[in-house]
Each structure stands twice: as structure tokens, then as C-alpha cells.
């Protein structure tokens, strides 16, 4: 005892030693936070700033760009005597379609997961086959589906031929069907993703509760709805989060399958940003930044909800 007090008084601990417990987590977080700040937070602010300029992305924004205040937003929304940007409206509306229809991946994934959650010979193989579309790149998915949809001779047009109808111009060539065609392609990997989330979720389902429910006479739909689904709530939440975010960043498929066409009818906001800035005939960085800000705001609504839900969850777990 005395020895230890001695050594304590002989060498007073440094500032770091005294605050070690408080500081260490921050030290470990620091690299991550620094990168997040430099590569995520700072560009978001830059986008806000850029959206107030008329700038073609060449040279320096201060010398080659002109500050125009909220003019870009006026153009987007048709305020202040400007004509509303029709392409922006199309993109926004398509994003809504994506958000709603992409959510189908959740029930589909759940259904497949329930179906695959059994013990038969070779089930691992079946599971991996169902999971396969999530592993391959979105670009490949897009290409495969665009061949599938090809008019005259594509598998899909042959299949619709059996029922005696043809989609004029092919699924992707017809502005009324093109977006739905792309969403269907997107659902393929997304369903696989949701399936895997649910499969892991199903592993965690408490067998005793299932047993108890069975003794009480629950089966079939009732068992699913009142016993299994409540236990899958965490999986559902994650599936919801990744699906919503996936729907909002649906860029690859649009770019690969239609390039925004036919005549711009399959644009979504993220693709419109690319089109206005980085694409071959882009050169409107300020305007693209304004679209990006709008997309960010939409995402922010969902992200705030997710964070709020998670926060509530944590608080619930603690108390």
C-alpha cells in the first residue's frame, strides 16, 4: 500500500494518463471522424455553396462562376416567374415511384426467407442461389435485364406474346413502362438483400415462444403475424432503411439500362445530378448542386426518422 502511494507521489501522472478513459474513445474515433468530415460533411457544405452559383465546373468557382443567389432553386421549382424545370419534376416523380415500389422488396424478401427457412437437403445451395443477385454488380443486373426486355426477341417480349400483347417500343423504350421495368430489375437484388436480413432474423426467433404459441393453438397466418413478425422487428427496420436509401440512390440501373431515356422519362434525381454536372453534356455544376441539395433534403427526412427511431430504441433498451 505504502509503496504504491510512494510511486504515485514520485511520478505524478501526465495529463493524458489522468484523462485516458475519457480521451481514448475519441482518439480511436478521430481518423473516422476526420475522414467523414473531409469527405462527407465538407462536400455537403460545398454543394450548398455551389448551388448558389452559375458555374460550368471549369476553372475556379470564384473567377469563372457568378453568384446568383437562389436563382437555381427558382428554376427548379418554377418560382419567381421562372418556368418550372420539367425534367426535375419527372425525376422527382420517378423517385416517388422508386420509393414506393422498391419497398416491395421487404415482403418479397420475407416470403422467400420464410420459404427457405427449413431443413432439407441442399438448402444452403438454394439459399446461396437466391442470394446470388445481390452479390453480382448492379451493372450486370442492369445489362441482363435490358437484354431480357429487348423488343422483338427479348425473353420478356416472347413471354408477353403468349398472352397476346406487346409493349410498343419494348419495356425500356416505352416511356410509360420504362421506369417500372428498371424498378423491377432493381427489386431482384434488393429482394435478395432483404431475404438475407430476414434469414438471420429468423435464426434469432425464440423457439420457446413459437412452442408456447403453438400450444395456445396459433398457426399459419396468425402465428406469422402475432409471434414471428414482432420478433423480426429489428430485421424489418434494417430492411426498411437499406431499401429506402437504395431507392434514393438508384443511379447505376438507370444509367446502364436507359441512360435516363427514352427522352428523359426514367430520370431520377441522382441521375439528373450526374447528367447536369459530370456527363458528356453536363457543364451546369451550380444547377446540379441545387438538385443534389434537394435530394439531400429528401434523404434527410428519412435519415432523421431512422436516427430518431434508433435513439428511441436505445432509450427503451436502457430504461
Amino acid at each position, binding site marked *: 500500500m505504502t509503496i504504491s502511494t510512494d510511486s504515485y507521489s514520485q511520478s505524478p501522472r501526465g495529463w493524458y494518463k489522468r484523462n485516458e478513459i475519457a480521451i481514448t474513445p475519441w482518439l480511436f474515433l478521430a481518423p473516422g471522424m476526420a475522414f467523414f468530415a473531409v469527405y462527407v460533411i465538407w462536400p455537403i457544405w460545398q454543394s450548398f455553396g455551389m448551388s448558389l452559383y452559375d458555374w460550368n465546373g471549369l476553372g475556379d468557382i470564384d473567377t469563372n462562376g457568378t453568384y446568383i443567389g437562389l436563382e437555381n432553386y427558382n428554376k427548379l421549382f418554377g418560382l419567381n416567374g421562372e418556368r418550372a424545370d420539367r425534367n426535375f419534376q419527372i425525376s422527382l416523380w420517378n423517385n416517388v415511384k422508386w420509393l414506393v415500389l422498391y419497398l416491395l422488396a421487404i415482403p418479397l424478401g420475407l416470403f422467400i426467407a420464410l420459404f427457405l427457412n427449413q431443413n432439407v437437403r441442399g438448402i444452403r445451395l438454394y439459399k446461396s442461389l437466391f442470394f446470388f443477385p445481390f452479390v453480382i454488380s448492379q451493372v450486370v443486373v442492369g445489362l441482363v435485364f435490358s437484354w431480357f426486355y429487348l423488343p422483338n426477341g427479348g425473353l420478356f417480349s416472347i413471354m408477353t406474346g403468349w398472352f397476346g400483347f406487346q409493349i410498343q417500343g419494348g419495356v425500356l423504350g416505352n416511356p410509360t413502362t420504362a421506369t417500372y421495368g428498371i424498378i423491377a430489375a432493381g427489386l431482384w437484388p434488393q429482394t435478395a438483400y432483404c431475404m438475407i436480413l430476414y434469414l438471420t432474423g429468423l435464426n434469432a426467433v425464440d423457439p420457446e415462444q413459437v412452442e408456447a404459441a403453438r400450444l395456445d393453438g396459433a398457426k399459419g397466418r396468425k402465428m406469422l403475424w402475432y409471434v414471428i413478425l414482432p420478433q423480426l422487428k429489428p430485421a424489418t427496420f434494417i430492411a426498411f432503411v437499406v431499401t429506402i436509401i437504395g431507392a434514393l440512390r438508384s443511379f447505376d440501373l438507370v444509367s446502364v439500362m436507359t441512360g435516363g*431515356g427514352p427522352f428523359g422519362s426514367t430520370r431520377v434525381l441522382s441521375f439528373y445530378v450526374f447528367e447536369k454536372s459530370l456527363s458528356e453534356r453536363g457543364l451546369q455544376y451550380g444547377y446540379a448542386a441545387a438538385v443534389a441539395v434537394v435530394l439531400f433534403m429528401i434523404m434527410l427526412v428519412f435519415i432523421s426518422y431512422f436516427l430518431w427511431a434508433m435513439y428511441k430504441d436505445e432509450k427503451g433498451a436502457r430504461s
Partner: protein
Amino acid sequence: MRSILKTSFAAFVAAGIAASAMQANAQSLTGTLSIFSDMSDPAPRAVMEDMAARFGEMHPELDVQVTIIDREAYKTQIRNFLSANPPDVANWYAANRMLPYVEAGLFDDVSDIWEGQMSEELASTKGALTVDGAQYGVPYTYYQWGIYYRKDLFEQFGLSEPSTWEEELANCQTLLDNGIKCYAIGTRFLWTAGGWFDYLNMRTNGYDFHARLTNGEESWTSDEVRATFANWRTLIDMGAFIDDHQSLDWQEALPFVVNGQAASYLMGNFVVAPLREAGLTDDQLDFYQFVEITPGIPRGEDAPTDTFHIPSGAQNKEAAREFLRFVVSADNQTLINNGQNLGQLPVNAMSSVDDDKFLQQGFDMLSNRAPGGIAQFFDRDAPAEMAAAGMEGFQEFMVFPDNLDDILERLEATRQDVY
């Protein structure tokens, strides 16, 4: 120094003025010359590498480094490398496509190369490389546009090359009656529809009107533009174009011509190579100039020009300038544009054109039968935003011709925004 002068004086006497000037230049070029090129297809790539090698041989002290970037990727990368990591020489396109880079001060003024004789030899494209009286690049190749058609099909139905709109329509009707589409086209990437608009508008309203329109000086809702679209509509209503073209790119539309499902294709001369590869012989394939529509209007032609530029941030501008002079020289242009290489037209008037029948016809057409003027192409003549909106509108019009009023109003709104 004196000894160099002496030797060069000796050479002067022995070999004449030109050779010694070359020699003196060759000795002075040192360091590295870095070239970024978008000539990524096999044939152009070989041409670029060969040009660099020949230039390197002429200047042994100079280390010539060529970086070849995929043609499509190049279009988006150029804006980054011009400011971040500029090479000494870079490929690009003439007219409005280079304008944003000139305005941002990223391309060097190369008017000195154009001084004197060069301006005469390259006169046909000088305008397309001039901004505010100064030149910002040099051309290395261009190619004609026009109708490439299946001669054997025409003969089978007793048709001949048309020269008026009525003949064109009559030919087309005969083909349609025999179950053959008149024109192959794939509008998935939009620009092919821009070619049709260019020609219909230049023939309906003349080159000057077309130039004013792409320059933003004419209204898209004007009667002239409507007349152009009315002519276009005649073809669409006849069913002259292949179906579902909005789902195809231009290569995917080629089999229609090869298999005889479509008789002709309005396209640039680069269409000849894949058609030949697909098995069409020169007896089956031929070319004619886009027909006259409004009688008496001097015909203008599309002939897109590909170019070399010196970025303002280049390190070795002296060597770069020498390379540009080398590129435009008559001998080099003859060589790189011949049938074994690019298979296109040399810009230099002193060059000779390959014996290839399409190149001969194209050269004759551009030199003697295009008094209206030479346009670059819709997406090079019009500013980027206008071109994007325009070509999207053309594609929509080709699928839904009834939307015309809406399309034109949109284009007019874009025009008032852009210019």
C-alpha cells in the same frame, strides 16, 4: 553556336531551306511531350501511336509519351485533367464543344500555328476552331455525313439515287411497299436523331438559318422550324424509320441494313467499316448526298472535325506546337487518313485523299457540292445544354410526333435560358 550555324549553313546549301529548318528545330526539342488522346478504338489507336513514334524519330532528344483514354470516359475526364494534371497536347472537338474550355482559359491560343500558309491549307475548318478571332486548336481529320444505302436493294426494285425530296419519298414508298424500311436508326443515345434534324433543317431552311438556330438567334417555335419538322413527320407517318429505334444504339441498328430489312442509313463515314466487316461489299453499298428539299437552297453539310489542342497548363509548349505543326502537315494528314488507317478525310487541302470510293465521294461532296457551308454537328454547333435538350426532343418527336408543340415550346424555353 557558331559551329551549328556553320553546319546548318552547309545543310542549307546541300538540302534546301525546308530540310534545314526541320533539322534546326529537331535539335532544339528536348524534355518530355505528354499527349492525352481519346483515340481508343483499335484503328485510331494505332494511328495515334504511330504518329507519336514518327514524331519521336524526328526529335530523338524528345521523350514522347502517349496516354490513350477510352473515348467515352475521356469526355468527362478532360475537365479534370485540364486543370489538375494538364498534358502538353490533348484531343478534343471543334466548335461549341471546345468553347467552354476556351472561355475558362484552359486551352492555349495557337494562332501562331495558323499564321500564313497554314490558314490557307486548313481554311475549311478555320472557322470551327476560331473564338474571338484567335484559334485554339488544329484539326487532324474530318468525315462526311450522308445516306449510305444498299445499292443491290435499290437495283432490285428499279430505284436510282434520288436528288430531290419527291424522288426520295417515292423511293421510300416503293421500299415500304416491298416490306423494307427506308432508314435504319438507333436513337438510344440521341445524337443520331440530331443528324436527321441537321440535314432536314439545312435542306428545308438552308445552312445560314441552321447556323443561326444552333447559335440561338432563331426561335424554335418559328414557322421555318415547324416546316422542318413537318418534312420529318412525312417520313415518320410513312413508317420510314425502323421500329423501336429508341431502344437501339447506332451499332445495334446496323444489322437492319446488313440483313436487308432497311435500305439506307443516314450516318457519318465511320459506318462504312462495320458494314464492310459485316460482309457487305462495295457493290452492295453506296453513298449519296442528302437530297434537296427546298429547291435552290445551297446545300450545307455536316462534317465533324476532330482536333488537337494545347492545354494552357502544358509544360512543354514548344514541343507541343511543333507536334501540332507535324499533325496538320499535308503528308501526315494524307497518311493518317488513308484507308489503312483512319479511313477519313484529311483537312489539309494539300493532302491527297485515299482511293476508297466513299472517301472520294465524300471529299468531292464537301469540296464541290456543299456551297451552303460546313456544319460540325448538332451537338458541336449548339451549346451543351441546348444540344442535350434538343436531341432529347428529337427522339421524343420521332416516337410521338403529336407532342411537337410541347417539344418546341420546351426547346424555345431552353434557348431563352441558355443564350
